[in-house]
């Protein structure tokens, strides 16, 4: 268990044509000891490069990495006491599961002479160390329910089993930091849900520092203590999952997190306490001057079909409805917006709606998000009485 501190990490790659590409841009980040931190972002945002820099697999162009309070710049990966789980699992295909699990211990506990082929086993102390290795391997295998697979080779395992072996290999030498690079993205949906729970449980049990890289917001939201959302080599926002969702710092974060995606529509500040959106005037106050254009972010679940018109109600025309079971997604057009908006409501409420039908949509004002023209979040003031909570 160790904290991680990244100080102004930069990474510049040289393209084949010789021009430099900045993959990481002066990135600073602290991970507390025992914390589960997720790096979330679209592909190409630099999150995998960052985790490889922490592991020591790639050198940073500038900046420094500390693990457990010690600067580890220039240190070899094996001296950093970190373990990593790879997207491809990176199991050694020519070794049995048992040998895969034992390798990190063999390399650390046996001397070079004891590791030597053929003669190694006759070196003094070999048997004693080998016993501790076998014991630890069996223990980890037992914990991850791999005992019956120890004699197999990775090629004979299913995706989920390989994933578990990769986890076990990372666990077996009890590193102070776990790094995971998209470990679940090669699994099918059902297995992914199951492994999510297992990794969370693993973190709770080991209480070790986890740094987890993913492009999947569900993984980030369900597993992490904190999530760092990355775009273009920078951290856009970092915080607990609930905070990222409720108070995104930028429009990009708001649009990246949440399914279905948040509705972003243009609005105009009409007065110090009102904003006009899609033909309706919502009682939301801002400090922007009258006439400013803002982006109004409406979460699909903050929109509700209602019976009658009102101050906080938009008029919509149903485009199509997707029934998801308990919930339904209703896609609809509003005045002055080319793109359809989406709302998420209970199947019961959506039951009366049909395509081409005109209906009323209430917005719950305390969930409305406002962004300026640069995409930065701006504060809004919502009168308490106008809250739509009563509609629900």
């Amino acid at each position, binding site marked *: 268990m160790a904290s991680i501190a990244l100080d102004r990490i930069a990474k510049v790659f040289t393209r084949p044509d010789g021009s430099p590409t900045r993959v990481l841009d002066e990135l600073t980040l602290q991970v507390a000891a025992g914390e589960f931190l997720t790096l979330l972002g679209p592909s190409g945002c630099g999150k995998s490069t960052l985790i490889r820099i922490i592991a020591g697999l790639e*050198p940073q162009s500038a900046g420094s990495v500390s693990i457990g309070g010690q600067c580890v710049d220039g240190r070899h990966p094996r001296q950093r006491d970190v373990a990593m789980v790879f997207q491809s699992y990176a199991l050694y295909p020519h070794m049995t599961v048992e040998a895969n699990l034992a390798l990190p211990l063999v390399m650390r506990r046996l001397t070079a002479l004891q590791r030597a082929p053929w003669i190694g086993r006759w070196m003094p102390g070999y048997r004693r160390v080998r016993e501790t290795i076998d014991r630890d391997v069996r223990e980890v295998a037992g914990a991850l329910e791999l005992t019956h697979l120890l004699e197999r080779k990775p090629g004979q395992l299913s995706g989920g089993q390989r994933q578990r072996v990769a986890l076990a290999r990372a666990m077996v030498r009890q590193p102070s930091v776990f790094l995971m690079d998209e470990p679940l993205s090669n699994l099918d949906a059902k297995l992914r849900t199951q492994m999510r729970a297992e990794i969370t449980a693993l973190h709770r049990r080991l209480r070790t520092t986890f740094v987890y890289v993913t492009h999947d917001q569900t993984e980030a939201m369900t597993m992490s203590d904190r999530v760092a959302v990355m775009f273009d080599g920078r951290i856009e926002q970092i915080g607990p999952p609930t905070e990222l969702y409720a108070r995104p710092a930028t429009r990009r974060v708001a649009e990246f997190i949440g399914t279905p995606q948040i509705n972003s529509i243009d609005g105009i500040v009409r007065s110090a306490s009102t904003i006009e959106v899609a033909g309706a005037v919502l009682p939301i106050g801002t400090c922007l001057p009258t006439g400013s254009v803002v982006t109004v972010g409406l979460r699909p679940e903050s929109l509700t079909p209602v019976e009658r018109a009102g101050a906080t109600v938009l008029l919509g025309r149903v485009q199509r409805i997707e029934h998801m079971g308990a919930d339904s997604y209703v896609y609809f057009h509003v005045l002055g917006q080319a793109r359809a908006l989406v709302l998420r409501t209970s199947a019961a409420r959506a039951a009366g709606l049909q395509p081409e039908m005109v209906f009323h949509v209430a917005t719950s004002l305390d969930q409305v998000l406002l962004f300026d023209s640069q995409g930065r979040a701006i504060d809004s003031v919502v009168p308490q009485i106008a809250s739509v909570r009563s509609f629900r």
Partner: protein
Amino acid sequence: MTTDAQATSMEHASQSSHGWLLAGPAAFALLALIILPALSVFFVALTDWQFGARTFSYVGLENYHELFADPDFYKSLRNTFVYVLIVVPGTVLTGLAIALLVESDRTLRTFYRAAHFLPFMATLAAMAVAWEALLHPTIGLLNQALSDLGLPTANWLRDPSTVLVTLAVIAIWKNLGFAMVLFMAGLKAIPRDLYDAADVDGAVGATDRLRTVTLPMLGPTMLFVVIVTALRALETFDTVNILTQGGPARASEMLLYTLYVESFGYLQAGRGAAITVVFLIIVVLLTLLQMRVMDRRVHYS
């Protein structure tokens, strides 16, 4: 920016040390045993050095002038080219025909492939001894068979008019299986739907299919096999050294044998080096051509 530069040089330093630690021994051996010796040949070719002599002097292109003024060297060059011109079409055409026949059906395919490939990997020095027995003028199997059939016999390896062709036949015998295997690989790479398309287009008979699909699609392989066979023919040494020593009357003397005799028989290092350079240039030109062909093959597949 200074930190940038420092970090970059640092990462280079650590990776470089690993890289050179691992590649170093091989790189040293590569330089010491291949690259520098090859370069030194060009230098020695400009001297009158003889093995064992303590001194030598620079003679410029004298060795090359002498070489190309020497009818014996011309003879060796000419023999080499004639030999290659027999071996290449002989090997390629029979190799292709046999590959087509073997691949046209499944029965006994493995046996035929093994039987035709066997000479390619058998020790040529030992097989040359067997060939000598086969070709023996009086008790050899070939002449016995010919005389039994009432056909004229010959002293195949001692007659200037037959010796080169005889050696060429042995080379074809040796390399045929190699060409066959390469053609078989080429045949496997032809997409099956091309044959279906040809069927639909009315190419019914085997010859039609051969002409419209197989042969055109084997074009790149063909070029490749031609060059590889030419290279192998150029490097012929064992049979000449064992069966004829270049004789009779230099009728079977070829480039590599000349190189060997001049360098290690007469210890004329300068002259041997000049021949080596000529040999190297021919081989390198062919190899570069081969690489071009390979590149193209990669693009097509």
